[in-house]
């Protein structure tokens, strides 16, 4: 069986492992050996950093070593990353902070330093791009890599190059990551999660069907609680349940998701690894210090979120044709509304007014714990904000004022000029 030592990168042919005895590298005797019949033939990978934000903090502050570290915002925020020490105590990402602190009262809570993480992420990205141009980042700390056809160039199969990448991240950046290697994106992503942290998991073509059969469908990326509930209703819990459905029936019941499920159930995923995938939406959200149904306070948040989204859109030269409003009620249930604009926009004023109109039509008094505003169906800014509104003759003046304020902020800083609304 094809085998690779993840420490010294020696490739060797390993016999079937004797039960109860771990394989060791014949060259350096390390137990960190990955062996698989298809190891050197697979080329689609998913790389996921281990507890990325927390690891960066621990690296930069040795005093944190061994302590539970939680990265997240404020008393009311949620955990964005927990280090493995905190995870042992039951803390996980997306958990409300108060709950995390109940489980782990001695945790060191650190506000995220996004600029630092982004800089480290760029370093990792550069290392990945040394392996292949087909790198598709999913976030700051994970990415798909397609190494198909790079064997000749590197003089080594993809598995070796990936083990080398992880070793390089450890040596040069002091960070660890896990690799999932398979024959498509779906399985690569599933694999990277099997053996965290510092994992290297392989799902070959031969065992794909066996591997999936009894696993729950909720492990599919993108199946959230709502989709899960719909699947439960149809009696679909595992991949084996899915296999019993005809493609037609799945499509009729779940639409485009149904078609995707049909193929995923068979371990098929034809999506390509795309570098520089165009951005699909821009959104910002905030969790409040305390739940509120106060229209004035919510209005302030609405404006600030609209302004943030607008700032980002302007910075990227983009605009959007659809405005999205997202609210989370006190019981964590989600409420989402969208409206299509006739003329795409990147202006905070139009974004705010559209979101505000959606808000006014909710007919739900709250209280809410989170509010988000987003722009979707993006287009270049040249195609946006081209015509005024007959029924809103003040719009042109406000848009002029916004452009002028942007200029002032560019020169004197983001706080140089604020709307009164932003102070609510």
């Amino acid at each position, binding site marked *: 069986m094809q085998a690779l030592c993840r420490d010294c990168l020696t490739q060797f042919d390993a016999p079937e492992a004797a039960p109860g005895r771990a394989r060791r590298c014949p060259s350096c005797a390390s137990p960190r050996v990955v062996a698989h019949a298809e190891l050197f033939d697979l080329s689609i990978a998913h790389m996921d950093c281990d507890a990325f934000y927390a690891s960066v903090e621990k690296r930069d502050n040795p005093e944190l070593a061994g302590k539970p570290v939680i990265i997240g915002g404020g008393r009311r925020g949620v955990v964005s990353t927990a280090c493995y020490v905190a995870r042992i105590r039951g803390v996980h990402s997306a958990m409300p902070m108060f709950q995390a602190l109940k489980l782990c009262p001695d945790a060191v809570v650190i506000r995220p330093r996004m600029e630092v993480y982004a800089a480290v992420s760029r370093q990792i990205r550069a290392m990945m791009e040394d392996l292949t141009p087909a790198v598709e980042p999913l976030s700051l700390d994970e990415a798909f890599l397609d190494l198909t056809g790079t064997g000749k160039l590197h003089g080594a199969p993809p598995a070796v190059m990936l083990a080398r990448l992880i070793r390089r991240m450890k040596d040069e950046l002091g960070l660890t990551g896990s690799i999932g290697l398979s024959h498509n994106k779906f399985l690569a992503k599933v694999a990277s999660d099997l053996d965290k942290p510092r994992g290297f998991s392989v799902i070959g073509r031969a065992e794909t069907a066996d591997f999936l059969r009894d696993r729950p469908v909720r492990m599919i990326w993108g199946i959230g609680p709502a989709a899960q509930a719909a699947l439960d209703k149809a009696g679909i819990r595992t991949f084996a349940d899915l296999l019993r459905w005809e493609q037609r029936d799945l499509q009729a019941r779940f639409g485009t998701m149904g078609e995707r499920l049909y193929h995923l159930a068979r371990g098929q995923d034809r999506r390509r690894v795309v570098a520089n995938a165009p951005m699909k939406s821009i959104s910002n959200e905030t969790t409040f210090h305390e739940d509120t149904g106060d229209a004035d306070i919510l209005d302030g948040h609405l404006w600030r979120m609209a302004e943030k989204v607008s700032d980002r859109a302007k910075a990227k030269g983009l605009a959007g044709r659809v405005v999205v409003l997202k609210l989370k009620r006190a019981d964590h249930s989600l409420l989402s509304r969208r*409206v*299509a604009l*006739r*003329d795409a926009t990147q202006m905070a004023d139009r974004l705010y007014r*559209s979101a505000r*109109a*959606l808000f006014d*039509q909710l007919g739900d008094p709250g209280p809410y714990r989170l509010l988000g505003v987003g722009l979707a169906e993006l287009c270049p800014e040249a*195609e946006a*904000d*081209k*015509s*005024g*509104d*007959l*029924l*809103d*003759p003040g719009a*042109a003046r406000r848009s002029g004022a916004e452009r002028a304020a942007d200029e002032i902020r560019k020169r004197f800083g983001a706080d140089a000029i604020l709307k009164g609304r932003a102070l609510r």
Partner: protein
Amino acid sequence: MKISIERGTLLKAVAQAQSVVERRNTIPILANVLIEAEGDQVQFRATDLDVEVVDKAPAQVERAGATTVAATTLHEIVRKLPDGALVTLTADNAAGRLTVEAGRSNFSLATLPKEDFPVMASSEYQSNFSAPAAVLRRLFDKSKFAISTEETRYYLNGVYMHVADGETGKVLRCVATDGHRLARIDADLPGGAEDMPGVIVPRKTVGELRKLLEDDDMQIAVSVSETKVRFATPDITLTSKVIDGTFPDYSRVIPQNNTRRMEVDAADFAKAVDRVATVSSERSRAVKMQLDQDRLVLSVNAPDSGAAEEELAVAYDDERLEIGFNAKYLLEIASQVDRENAVFMFNSSGDPTLMREGNDQSAVYVVMPMRV
């Protein structure tokens, strides 16, 4: 219930009913048409709870009675029957079936009890008047293109029909706008309409109403209350809720002081706009108008796909002007003009532009320009 009815008569009545029925709906009875037979007449009623249509047709009623059956299925069947066939409808309410027979064809359809069918509550109408079909047709046909589909401004999702002060006294006026263009159409005020409350007639109702207005000389009975509007011919009654909202004050939107006048043959203009817009790649299809002394140059410059230019002879005697519009909006307003030349009144490249037919003030259109 057992009736016999000529296929063509049945098709007309059922077609009207099935177009009111919503394609996708969650309440099964709303997919049905209520058929009631009595005397020598049969009545077909369909509703989506906002709009209701009742269509009467002559029939041989062998046994009076009523039932409800899926409107689209019945329509499909009748549509496919041969022309001139005599159709017999027999309801077996105990079995919950309606039999449709014509020649050697025989269909058996599931029914729902007539008691479950929601009949729109009748209401008091404050204003009752009658107007020729041709007048109503002009009012709605010329304004409906400007109806908004934007859900956040639901009060724009219809035509605002009201009594207004026109140039020469009171008029019956229809206005529609989506914030990018506006249409304001006037007609002589029919007798009895003076006290009509202003109502916003929903888009769907406007579409259904159109089918009642084919015959020019037909007098349409119109009834209006604060919450409902009704249009009736001797055979068909269309009742609709109106949009519960306030239509914006459109009068301040209509430019009064646009002085730069361009006159052009509307058909030539529309064809030229359509031609140059072909190369536009954007969704909004912006067309630039460049005006000089008696000369208009229409152009599109789309960096990704190409460029187009066309020159047109016009009557224009003012300063040079460059202004951009959405091609679709220009085509829509130009297509409203059918007798005289189109007259455009501009101010600046950022201000709303007004268009009318010759000097006719009874149909006025406003379009918002766009940056090009």
